[in-house]
């Protein structure tokens, strides 16, 4: 009896917080290897290379908590990256970046219109939107990488402030803003309510359409922000980076503990989930695992984690 309750408690922790045990296993495991994992340089580099995905995940978390999801972020990421470089030939840098972000907000607005106002299925509409935007990015760049000639632009993504990479600082600022938004504002609390039960939220007087719509707009905006930062980091805009990003980020958010069922999760959880993916990449590189095995391992982890998420849902249904 005692043993079953203990094991079910362990199972509960595992299903609620999948990323943390995963991270701890990797951290402990790396203690026993002779690699440069535990150097400040590597740890900072790991944060730096996960930063784009982390920023993307913050916006996506909002849509998933509201009971949707956003697969168009890959498309927004590449188009805004290309736009922020391309527009610099006709206007100064900051207005160009501003336009790129406005573009993301507009796409998010359209997504929100279709998903929330017209009540279509979020995942398939945003998948189509992502496909469309990938085509736009290919057309804009003629499917070639588009280099930037502005050194100031490159410094945004590659510069340091007090020894810390700019990208890490921007990620931390975004993290604080989004965590505050979700925890301490009416908007954030309403999103949880909408994801928990749409109809109940509506009858309790929440403006469900406007709130959920806003989640998609914010997700589009953050994706555009991440897109310009990625372009700046690589100093090129290209149509290929968005290919799998959308699915990986959405999976990462679920790995963190935000459930597709909606209403559960949060920004810190998503950060942990994406960090787990970033750390997995770093650890695999440190251990010199060849890239094909890396793909295999990553795919297996995604399946395992989503499997656990669904299984927990099933247990919950059976309990009720």
């Amino acid at each position, binding site marked *: 009896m005692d043993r079953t309750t203990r094991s079910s408690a362990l199972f509960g922790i595992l299903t609620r917080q999948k990323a943390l045990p995963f991270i701890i296993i990797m951290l402990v495991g790396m203690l026993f290897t002779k690699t440069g994992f535990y150097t400040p340089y590597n740890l900072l580099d790991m944060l730096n290379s996960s930063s784009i995905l982390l920023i993307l995940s913050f916006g996506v978390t909002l849509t998933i908590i509201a009971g949707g*999801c956003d697969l168009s972020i890959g498309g927004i990421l590449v188009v805004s990256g290309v736009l922020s470089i391309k527009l610099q030939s006709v206007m100064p840098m900051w207005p160009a970046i501003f336009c790129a972000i406005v573009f993301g907000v507009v796409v998010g607005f359209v997504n929100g219109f*279709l998903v929330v106002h*017209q*009540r*279509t*299925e*979020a*995942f*398939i*509409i945003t*998948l*189509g*939107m*992502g*496909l*469309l*935007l*990938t*085509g*736009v990015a*290919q*057309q804009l760049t*003629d*499917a070639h990488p588009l280099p930037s000639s502005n050194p100031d632009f490159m410094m945004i993504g590659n510069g340091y402030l007090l020894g810390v990479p700019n990208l890490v600082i921007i990620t931390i600022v975004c993290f604080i803003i989004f965590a505050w938004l979700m925890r301490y504002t009416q908007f954030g609390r309403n999103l949880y309510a909408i994801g928990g039960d749409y109809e109940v939220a509506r009858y309790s007087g929440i403006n469900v359409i406007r709130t959920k719509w806003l989640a998609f707009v914010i997700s589009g905006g953050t994706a555009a922000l991440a897109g310009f930062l990625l372009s700046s980091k690589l100093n090129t805009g290209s149509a290929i980076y968005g290919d799998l990003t959308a*699915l990986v980020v*959405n*999976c990462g958010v*679920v790995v963190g503990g935000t459930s*597709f069922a909606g209403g559960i999760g949060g920004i810190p959880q998503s950060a942990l989930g994406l960090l787990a993916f970033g750390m997995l990449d770093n650890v695999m590189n440190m251990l010199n695992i060849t890239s*094909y*095995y890396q*793909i*295999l391992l*990553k*795919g*297996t982890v*995604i*399946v395992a984690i*989503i*499997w*656990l*998420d*669904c*299984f927990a*849902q*099933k247990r919950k*249904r059976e309990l009720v």
Partner: protein
Amino acid sequence: MSPAEKTGALKSAAGFLRSYLLIVLIAVLVVLTAIVEPKFLSGQNMINIMRQFGPLIMVALGMTFVIIGGFIDLSVAGIINLVAVVTISLIQVLGQVPALIVGMALGAACGALNSVVILSSGALTQAEALFMTFGMSTVYSAFALLYSHGSTMHFWDIDKSKSVFEAIGAGKVGPVSVSFLIFLFFLALLWIFQANTTEGRSIRLTGGNKTAAELAGIRIRRSIVVIYTICGFMAGVGAIVLFSRITTAAPVIGANFETNAILSVVVGGTTLKGGKGSVLRTVTGVLLIILMSNCLNLLGVSSYLQVVAKGAILVFAIWLDNRKQA
């Protein structure tokens, strides 16, 4: 005409447009292309269009069942990668016909594995299945990469006159290509399965309402296994047709097949909500997509803008489908 009659006629016209807007739009495009570019109506172009009834339609036919059953399958890209490289490497070892059979069986096995993973987790929604099969797709692609060491494989060294794959890829019976005949064969088979068997009807009921279907005594678990197995099998067939045509198999050969297949199914009018649809509609959908890209090619529209057009049509078709339901 009285005003009431007028509004009635307008309403039914609007209803007609809403139901067939996509077909109307593409018909307009076809007429425009025929006017601007008379080559469109030439015999050569018609043969070209027929030749394109190749890999995509096979995959889309399989995908139809998954969508009718209320699920979705992103893993076809991975299955195509894996089946293509495994089959092409087995030609030397086993001979052509056994390699063909192993290839199709491997596709079906991958599909069955998907259904096992989904069933064991208790996933019930399309979104859960989407992410799960995406993960499976990554796994299959990784196996394809490991198996082929990332290199492209050829089958040049087979005796061409006796080659089954050469026949599948480039052979003709009269003016009709062999791949078109293969397509007709599978279409007939799957249509009979869908319309005239108990299992075909069970799939439809499962897609319509899983709980109701289960309470009515339908074995929904078996239906789910069947739809994914068919989808995997057809993806395997698609992979074989694909590499037979291009005579090489790279482990990334299946990229984008999943979105194009879903696009064809949805454009054909099978609803993503499940429970409704048919393989015949998918054929219309694929025909529309092929006609569209043929027209856009003749009009000189870049392939990148064609991706944009496809994405826009996907979004638009789902929106229309949703309006019809409401």
